[in-house]
């Protein structure tokens, strides 16, 4: 996980959460959470009963009823506090984002020309398709694509990253985000989103949780919890007529007090998970924001946990971005220094990372200093898709470098050709997964540069973990199958697709989905958009095009494709945390029965004391202890809800065994101990 880049202070968040715990008591809000709404109704009911006991004849002593009422209120407040705490972080971040948006004026252009007539309009009035000029020092007024110019942009307001980035027209570096600032030069931006729909708006809504819709699993769990609550409501409500009947046939004792029934109900309904459910969801989104990923919906995050196929672009995800020259292999009779010199000359004007790596290799390994060619008569030949070569014409020398077949053709035209030893070198490099680049001077090939993909450190172990938890990794690359196979083997992916095109990517995703798999992928280019739209979880790079960002359901602000792995973990963690707390909550009920049932009927059926395994002090202390335990456990579990249970790279069967042991068995045993301890404490200090 990445370290958080925005870290709001804890103190104010806790203070604000404490206040919000009370404002959230509004029944119109509470009714959205049926379990906690039941507790609130119970709190009101017992409060009224306490008041009745205070002023007149109550069903039990005022102290007892008031004690239960107070702890029921605490139960509700604790749950509200947990939710407010989870929301707190997001709120603080949303505020700083809002500041970035305020009072921006835009220069709207009448046509796509820097010198066209410009009018000043507030950013909020910009529509899709408007052209705006942004110059150094300006804040970019809205999301869009650079259509002209190049500028360095400070995106720290959105990404938290202070190093400026380059944005220019054309290609995959054209997207700009509203709220970021141009530091130098100028750009013309075509606005791509209407007011209220911008990335910043979406991000604010997301972190604030204002638009947070319940995720599918959350809805399913809500239904289950409501169903359980209803069952327990029936079990508790029917106890009253049962106890009346028992009373009548026995002629001793008293009907079970409403306070006890309410206490029993609240203890039985799954308040632990009911109270923490929304906090778990919000905290999950927050963890995502902390690794600098913005999801368009919670549904997408949850789907990330279900993903079982990861499509990973080779470049940038599995390998460190670009191929690097690692070795120079001269042809027979050519000195390696001569080859190094030619290769360096051919690459001096080549600003691609591959080109630069050749220059660096020549300098570091073969001691050639970088030469200044500005004042010489050098003519640089740029790479074109047609010739697929680049090079330099210098003082009568004609140096070229390029793929073997391209150079072969070039040499043939000059009456030469590739010698067998060059061809052998090319073969060897290609077989090892490298890319051979032939360097030629005149009509003669001097040798071969070995370009190699460098697999990122630690990625192999990461893929092994994914395999253990049942996620298949597929490497996508434009390389030929041979090269792709070698890198795939080195990186330890499960399979690869070589010579991938946007169409083959789309077909691959569709094929996997038809077989029932859920597919995640990352992408940044416009040609990735169809595949991103098809994938179940699609992470677009923030540096990518607007089209890619719109097609994806998440945006990675750091533009780090490896982040997909974090996202999957966060998705899983959200589900696991919910499952763990649900199991814990339900398992807790057993002990509560043993505490409350004997206490409730102590008067009518003293024999039921035999069920009081915990040997609690008195019926009243038993009920109170159960209620207090029920409230306190919520607060104790807040850290787990917010942090999430630890995700371990184990297969499902092992995870289930482990979590059942911890949360199932633990949930069964913990309340026996907890209730007994609380009973001891409250009897010692004389509360009950």
């Amino acid at each position, binding site marked *: 996980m990445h370290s958080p880049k925005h870290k709001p202070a804890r103190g104010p968040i806790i203070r604000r959460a404490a206040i919000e715990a009370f404002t959230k008591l509004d029944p119109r809000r509470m009714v959205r959470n049926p379990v906690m709404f039941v507790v609130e109704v119970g709190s009101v009911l017992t409060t009224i009963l306490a008041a009745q006991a205070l002023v007149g004849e109550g069903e039990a002593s005022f102290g007892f009823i008031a004690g239960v009422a107070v702890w029921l209120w605490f139960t509700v407040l604790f749950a509200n506090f947990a939710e407010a705490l989870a929301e707190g972080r997001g709120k603080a971040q949303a505020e700083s984002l809002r500041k970035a948006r305020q009072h921006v004026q835009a220069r709207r252009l009448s046509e796509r020309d820097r010198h066209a007539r410009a009018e000043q309009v507030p950013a909020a009035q910009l529509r899709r398709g408007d052209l705006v000029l942004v110059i150094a020092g300006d804040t970019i007024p809205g999301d869009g694509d650079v259509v002209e110019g190049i500028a360095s942009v400070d995106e720290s307001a959105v990404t938290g990253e202070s190093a400026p980035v380059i944005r220019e027209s054309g290609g995959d570096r054209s997207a700009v985000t509203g709220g970021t600032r141009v530091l130098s030069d100028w750009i013309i931006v075509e606005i791509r989103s209407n007011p209220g729909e911008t990335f910043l708006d979406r991000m604010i809504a997301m972190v604030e949780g204002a638009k947070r819709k319940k995720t599918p699993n959350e809805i399913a769990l809500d*239904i*289950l919890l409501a*169903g359980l609550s209803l*069952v327990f409501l029936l079990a508790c409500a029917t106890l009253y007529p049962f106890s009346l009947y028992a009373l009548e046939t026995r002629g001793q004792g008293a009907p079970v007090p409403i306070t006890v029934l309410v206490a029993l109900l609240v203890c039985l309904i799954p308040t632990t998970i009911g109270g923490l459910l929304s906090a778990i969801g919000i905290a999950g989104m927050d963890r995502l924001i902390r690794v600098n990923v913005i999801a368009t919906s919670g549904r997408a995050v949850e789907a990330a946990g279900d993903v079982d196929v990861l499509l990973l672009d080779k470049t940038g995800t599995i390998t460190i971005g670009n191929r690097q020259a690692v070795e120079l292999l001269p042809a027979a009779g050519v000195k390696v220094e001569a080859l190094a010199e030619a290769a360096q000359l051919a690459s001096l004007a080549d600003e691609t990372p591959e080109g630069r790596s050749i220059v660096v290799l020549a300098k570091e390994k073969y001691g050639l200093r970088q030469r200044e060619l500005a004042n010489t008569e050098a003519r640089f030949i740029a790479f074109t898709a047609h010739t697929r070569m680049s090079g330099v014409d210098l003082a009568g020398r004609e140096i070229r470098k390029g793929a073997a077949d391209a150079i072969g053709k070039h040499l043939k035209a000059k009456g030469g050709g590739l010698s067998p030893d060059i061809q052998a070198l090319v073969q060897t490099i290609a077989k090892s997964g490298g890319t051979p680049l032939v360097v030629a001077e005149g009509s003669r090939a001097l040798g071969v540069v070995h370009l190699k993909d460098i697999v990122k450190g630690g990625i192999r172990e990461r893929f092994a973990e994914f395999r253990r938890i049942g996620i298949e990794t597929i490497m996508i690359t434009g390389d030929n199958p041979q090269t792709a196979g070698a890198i795939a083997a080195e990186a330890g992916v499960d399979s690869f697709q070589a010579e991938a095109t946007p169409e083959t990517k789309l077909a691959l995703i569709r094929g996997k989905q038809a077989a029932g798999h859920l597919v995640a992928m990352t992408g940044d280019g416009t040609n990735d958009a169809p595949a991103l739209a098809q994938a179940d979880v699609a992470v677009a790079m923030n540096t990518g095009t607007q089209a890619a960002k719109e097609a994806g359901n998440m945006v990675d602000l750091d533009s780090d494709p490896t982040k997909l792995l974090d996202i999957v973990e966060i998705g899983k963690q959200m589900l696991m945390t*919910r499952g763990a707390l649900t199991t814990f909550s339900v398992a807790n009920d057993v002990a509560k029965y043993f505490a409350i049932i004997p206490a409730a009927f102590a008067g009518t*059926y003293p024999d039921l004391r035999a069920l009081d395994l915990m040997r609690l002090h008195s019926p009243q202390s038993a009920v109170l202890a159960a209620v207090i335990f029920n409230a306190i456990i919520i607060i104790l579990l807040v850290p787990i809800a917010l942090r999430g249970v630890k995700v371990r790279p184990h297969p499902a069967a092992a995870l289930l065994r482990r*979590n059942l042991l911890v949360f199932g068995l633990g949930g069964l045993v913990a309340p026996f101990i907890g209730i007994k301890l609380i009973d001891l404490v409250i009897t010692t200090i004389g509360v009950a």
Partner: protein
Amino acid sequence: MTAHALLQCGVYVVVLVALAVPLGGYCARVLGGEATLVQRLLGPLERGLYRAAGVRPDDEMDWRDYTGAVLWFNLFGLLVVYGLQRLQHLLPLNPQELGPVAPDLAFNTAVSFASNTNWQAYGGETTLSYLTQMVGLTTQNFVSAATGIAVLAALARAFSRRRAETIGNFWADLVRSTLYILLPLSLVLAVALAADGVVQTFAPAAEVELMRAATGPEGQVITQQTIPLGPGASQIAIKQLGTNGGGFYNINSAHPLENPTPLTNVLECLAILLIPAALCLSFGKIVADRRQGWAVLGAMFAIFLPLLGLCVWSEGQLAPQLVELGVDPSAGNLEGKEVRFGAAASALWATATTAASNGSVNAMHDSFNPLGGLVPMWLMQVGEVVFGGVGSGLYGMLVFAILAVFLAGLMVGRTPEYLGKKIEAFEVKMAALVILLPSAGVLVGTAIAVASEAGRAGISNPGIHGFSEVLYGFSSASNNNGSAFAGLGANSFFYNLALGLCMLIGRYGIIVPVLALAGALARKQTVPPGPGTMPTHTPLFVFLLAAIVVLVGALTFVPALALGPIVEHLQMTGAHP
């Protein structure tokens, strides 16, 4: 528990499983429409039935049509039984000239037999004509069981299909279940029972000389006894096999002509669980993963065996109060039991008949010790999913499996899935309904009964045991078992209506959500299993499933049980008066 009792139970379980394996495979073939030997014999009959009814068996139905067919067919059956009872005085085959059955009792009986409950608020010999018994009740014994199998077949198919709209044809499932499963099995069992002395004759009632003259209520000397006879074995066979339970004689399989020998006792007892156990294995075959069938069966045994142990142990004890009176405790609690079976075989039957929603008895559950009586009651309350009714027990258990998968499945960090189908909001909603409705019937019904005059009027044993009787009655009706604790005067307007409603809710309030579930599951894509999938065939899952069933059943009913059998037991054994 004695070695003898242990041996009895052990042999029972081994034979049951040994029979369930081949039968499970056979049922799966029948439900898949595959040709079997029996089909070659009865095929013309099957096709004739389709032609007569204008049904094309290959026309698949979506879940709405399937549900519609189930409900219309059951409503029709209900109305026929109701009509036969109300009009039996005008119809033939009524030699005793019995009058029309009262509307409330007729309603209760019609619902009872349509819903495979076979709760008997009437006294058979004295209320219903031969026509009503034969055409009404016996027909329902077959088709209500076949309805259960059909609904199960639809659900099993839904799991095995992907992106499908249809879940089978109800008429085909109904006809095949009846002709190829229930009919041949009943035939075999009936012959076996008759061979060992169960009554099977069209002869009139026999007049026999008593070995010792008795004295009547008015002081007259009685030397002769009338023993009612009839075609018993054939009806007893389907009563046991179809988890019906309505006896040929009023005292059911405690009657010496209904269940004369230890051998017939074993056969009848095996017949109770045979089809429910076999269908688990059929399910595994239909979903193309036999381990899943064994897992579900394993979970059923995991609940059944400890409870069987508890019940057999409890009935092996004699109440301390009776020991003080000098009763020999070595034979256990024999009150209300047949001495030719003994305490263990009676406890085994009681556990089996309530685990399955059969409800036939060979002893009076009312006379069991408190814990022995708690076992049958609680087995019904967990929703009749431990074996349960023919078909219905398994579909109930599968709903619990869905619930178990959902509860624990989240813990592996994926949307829970069962047999490759993702369990989402709709499935959870249906599962919650299936669990909620019968529980509501038991608790609300009992509450109304003990709180109302009409309800209390039927309680014969006042006090705690009276409460247990009412609770037992509503548990039995709401879960379509039909077993009675006795002691409850259930033929009153209140109980006929209340228990009738509970039976309706317990049957159709489950069938509809289960079929809706089937529709939703069939439409879903199937997720291929991988290391990230929570396995549902391991011992851990078997344990989990059993634990969820027990936990839900316990959490729902512990308060009520505490006020009934539990406090009874504590009072019997404890120091308190």
